[in-house]
Structures are given as structure tokens and as C-alpha cells.
């Protein structure tokens, strides 16, 4: 394999019913940095049915080029059809780096593509960089339960591929003045040849509304003591219109269902305000919340690691602090007769 034939950074643009997934925009941001370091173009790879109108958005978020395959068979994501399109593009245009969101579909697609291209794929990365001297992509991910980061390299195969966790990278500000090149390719796909059919897609709105989209999250840890004390968090949540989440220990204690767990093996969240109450701040927890805009930690142990990621720290007993906070917020509301809202 002649490595120098492979140039450019690609991002797979995941779209659902005409809407681009947040993680793809984040990856355009991260990909922009990589492409600038390598002095190569950044391209988005957009597959679907009737998706041409999304190409501009891909450019506005940082791409120089957009590769499009628009075909009725690509209406819903399926490994077999999407894989075929992506592999044909990669074989023809030879990118050196190819990023995918670490979503169910992104991971599924990347795994299949890597196998057919016989190349390396690093899963669930959280840090991306370039070793300019060797022109190598450095894809890092938490290893061994997250206490340490491992940088994975793919020295002799191209493209160098990685899936990247959602909500870790930052999307660029949208820039409507950007102009990009659109490259449309065709593909021969027949519905009769497909071995899988998507019969129905059932969207779950309840869960999303809970954590991933919440502006304010109150997250409780084992330090809440028991299920009864844990209820204090709901009072605070009610007073400021927040959602409640928990650490793994809390979920294991049965105080919360698993889908409300925040951290490496739970949800990754980036609310405007994150209250971390009675939780120690283990690295497996903080990877899932450290990109929140404001983090408020309440812990009675002044040495708890959560204070290292907190914007504001209160050293104290949660059972004493929480009622006072709730009172203050309620007073504020009653006083002005208004509702708190988040921009």
C-alpha cells in the first residue's frame, strides 16, 4: 500500500430523516483541526435519499468538500447499503483519516467498512491528534476502565479510522459564508438485492427529553446516603426545572434506572449547569459530564476529585446545603412570580 496516495480527512455525516446528527457536526469541528494540521481538505460523506439539501450545512460547519450519494435504497440506514457506498468512495478518493460518530449506526458502519478495507479502527475515542513528524493519526481512548488513556496508531494501513464519542468534540460556529465543493457519485444498488429491510423506526422522545437535552442536571451520588435522602434532589430539580441523574453506584443501589446513569458506561451529557451532589468524581463519571458549562460540586470531603472539574465547589453536607438551595430558588420564584428559564 502506497501511503502517500491517501490524503484528506473525512467525516461520515450521519443523518436521520433529513436531520444531521449532532455528533457529525462535532466531528467536522474536530476534523477541521486535523485537516489544518495536515494541510489537506476536510470532507463530509453524506449518504441518504434526498439529502442533497444538507450539503451546504456540512460546508457551513467546516468542510471543504462534500461527497454525496443520493439513492432511494439509502433512505434508512442499513449496514449493507451504506457500507457499499462508503467503501466505493473511500477506494476511489483514498482519504488518510476517516471519522465516524460512536453511535449505534456509526459504529456498525465503521466496523464493516474497516473489515472490507482491511484497515485499523479505534473505537470510542475521546482525543484526536496528529503526529506531524510521522504524519500519523493519534486516536486516544480511555482504556482499562478509564483510569488511563491509550493512544492507538495505525501505521501501515489507510484510511486510519476511528469512532468518536458524541459530545466530546466541539462543533464550530456555523459560518454561512463558507463555500465548498460538492462531489456527487452514483451507485448501483437494487432493493431486491438487500438482505435486510427496515420495517419501522420508533423514536423514543421520553428518554432524550430527560438527560441528553436537559439544560440543567442534578446528579446524585452514593453520598446521598439512602433512597429517601436522594429524593431531596428531585425537590431541587423541581424548583429549577432540572432533570435528575446518578452515578453508577446509585444505579447499582437501585435508586435510579440505568438509563439515568451518567458516565463512561452511561450517558454523556453537556448541560448548561450540572450539579454534582454527594459523588466523588471518579474518572469514569467525569468523562460523561466534564464538558458541562458550569459544574457545581457539593461534597463533604474537600479532597474529593470532583472539585478538580467543578466550576464552583461547596464543601459541606448535602443534607444541609440542598434544603437551603431549594429554599433560595423557591423564594426567588415566589418573589418575582416568574419561572427560571435557560437560554
Amino acid at each position, binding site marked *: 500500500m502506497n501511503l502517500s496516495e491517501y490524503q484528506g480527512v473525512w467525516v461520515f455525516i450521519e443523518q436521520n430523516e433529513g436531520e444531521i446528527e449532532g455528533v457529525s457536526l462535532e466531528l467536522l469541528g474536530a476534523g477541521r483541526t486535523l485537516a489544518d494540521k495536515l494541510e489537506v481538505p476536510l470532507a463530509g460523506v453524506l449518504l441518504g435519499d434526498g439529502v442533497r439539501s444538507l450539503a451546504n450545512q456540512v460546508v457551513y460547519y467546516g468542510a471543504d468538500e462534500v461527497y454525496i450519494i443520493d439513492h432511494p435504497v439509502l433512505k434508512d440506514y442499513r449496514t449493507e447499503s451504506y457500507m457499499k457506498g462508503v467503501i466505493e468512495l473511500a477506494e476511489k478518493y483514498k482519504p488518510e483519516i476517516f471519522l465516524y460518530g460512536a453511535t449505534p449506526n456509526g459504529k456498525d458502519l465503521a466496523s464493516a467498512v474497516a473489515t472490507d478495507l482491511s484497515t485499523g479502527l479505534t473505537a470510542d475515542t475521546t482525543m484526536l491528534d496528529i503526529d506531524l513528524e510521522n504524519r500519523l493519526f493519534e486516536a486516544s481512548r480511555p482504556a482499562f476502565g478509564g483510569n488511563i488513556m491509550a493512544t492507538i496508531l495505525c501505521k501501515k494501513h489507510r484510511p486510519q479510522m476511528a469512532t468518536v464519542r458524541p459530545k466530546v468534540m466541539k462543533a464550530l460556529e456555523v459560518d454561512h459564508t463558507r463555500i465548498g465543493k460538492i462531489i456527487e457519485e452514483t451507485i448501483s444498488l437494487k432493493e431486491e438485492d438487500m438482505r435486510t429491510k427496515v420495517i419501522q423506526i420508533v423514536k423514543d422522545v421520553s428518554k432524550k427529553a430527560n438527560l441528553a437535552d436537559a439544560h440543567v442536571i442534578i446528579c446524585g451520588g452514593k453520598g446521598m446516603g439512602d433512597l429517601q435522602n436522594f429524593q431531596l434532589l428531585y425537590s431541587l430539580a423541581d424548583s429549577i426545572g432540572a432533570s435528575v441523574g446518578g452515578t453508577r453506584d446509585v444505579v447499582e443501589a437501585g435508586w435510579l434506572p440505568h438509563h439515568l446513569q451518567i458516565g463512561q458506561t452511561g450517558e454523556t451529557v453537556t448541560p448548561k449547569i450540572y450539579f454534582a451532589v454527594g459523588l466523588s468524581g471518579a474518572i469514569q463519571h467525569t468523562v460523561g459530564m466534564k464538558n458541562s458549562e458550569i459544574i457545581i460540586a457539593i461534597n463533604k470531603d474537600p479532597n474529593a476529585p470532583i472539585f478538580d472539574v467543578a466550576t464552583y*465547589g461547596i464543601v459541606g453536607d448535602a443534607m444541609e446545603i440542598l434544603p437551603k438551595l431549594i429554599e*433560595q430558588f423557591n423564594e426567588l420564584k415566589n418573589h418575582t412570580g416568574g419561572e427560571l428559564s435557560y437560554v
Partner: protein
Amino acid sequence: MHIVVCVKQVPDTKIIKINPKTNTLDRRSAPAILNPYDAHAVQEAVRLKKLVGGTVSVVSMGPPQATAIIKKSVEIGADEGYLISDRAFAGADTLATSYALSKALERIAKIKPIDMVICGKHAIDGDTGQVGPGIARRLDIPPVTNVIEVTEVIEKDKKVVIKRKLTSGYEIIQAQLPCLLTVEKEINEVEYSPLPNMIRAAKYESIIWTVADLENVDKVQLGLKGSPTIVGKMFSPPKPEGGIRLEGTANEQVNKLMDLLMEKKELFTLQTTK
């Protein structure tokens, strides 16, 4: 129906201790277990077998001790268990692993044609989830990942109906057999093993193969040699600096916090609704 489940022996990361000096896993501190997702995969195969009849085989790649998880699979209800074990497999990344396992599956298919392959969503020691789809590609059968329910097996049409988890919600997919599924934990509850299974498992001798027992193997694609990825370096994640500690009594701290939050007008505003 012949269902083959791919299983892996992993250290129990729930119990595992981290060596604070080296920041690496102290593998000796943790018992080796059947990867929890794979236990659900075996359970699902056993459930389908009860539904439509057939055979459940399991296959693993690993050191000789990995026969322990094959016994465990037999406890859950698997009929046969194969272990491929050879130094040539050592150091395999996901690409080389899917290659070796696909060769084992081809060999098993010669003994009895395979209708379905089931894998766990991922292994808890690597967390990649890449091996399942990789195997499907190598066998040229459709992969369906993140499965939360096998709703129906339509034997006469050689089709299955499956619920697949998405970022938000799920989708219903119809797939032709043979296909490969990777399963989530919520697909089933792993049941307590009935006594006859326990007895059978205790006596069960796994079928162990080396590379020489597999056919048409391109040795360059095995183990470390066949692995395009390598671990470059390990490092501790950069430690963040931390922000402001609020001082004073509980009341003073809370008041200070309220002041700080109210200053953050760009995030947090009070709207008068009346």
C-alpha cells in the same frame, strides 16, 4: 436451526482493581468471567432453540483456560463448544480477531451449516463492539447490531424480525438468514441454570482447535501480524485545574452560589410569566 454464539473470557471489570502506581489493570485481582453481553447472547440462542428447535454451539478464541467460559455456556444451555487456541492468535486486534473467528465458524459450518451467529454487543475489557460486524462481513452475511429483541423467526422463509436499539428509540428490521446479531443486555434475563445443565457442563470437554485445524488460513492475517492497530502510548488523562471554592458557612456558600449563578445571565434567566 443451528445458532453459533461467539463468546469471550474477560476480567470482571466490576471487581478489578487499578494498580495506583502504574495506573493499569491488575488482572490478577479480577476473576475471569464469561463476558456479560455474551451470556445474554448464549441465553438468546437457547431461547430461540426452545422456540424453533435446533442446536446451539459456542466458539471462543483464547488461552486454554478459556474452556471455563465454554463450560459456563453449556450451563446456560449450549450443546457444543469450540475453543480456538494457538500462539499465532496472540496480540490480535479486532480485525485479526474477526478473521480468526470467521475461520473457526467456516469450519463449524462444515460440521453443521450455520443459520445464525450471535455475539454480545461488546466485550467489557475492550468495549469496541467491532468484532461482530467484522465477522459478518467476512462470512458475507448481514450484521444486525444492538439487538434488543428477536421478535419472530419465520423458518419457512428463512427470515427473522428484530428490534434494534438506536441512539433514541429503536427500529424493527427484517433480516434474511443466515445473519449475525449483536445483542444488548436488555434482550433477556440470564436464567439460573437447571441442574442437568450443570452436571453436563461439569463433565463437558470443549473441542479445541489450533490454527492447523482450520482451513484456508492466511497466517499473515492472524494475531499481532494481522493487526493494523497498535497501542502507541499510555498516559494519564490531563488533570483539570478546578474552579472556585466557595468559602464560609453553609448559608454563606449558598448565597455566594446564588449570586454567581444570577450573574450568569447568558445561561440562566428569570422570566416573569405574569
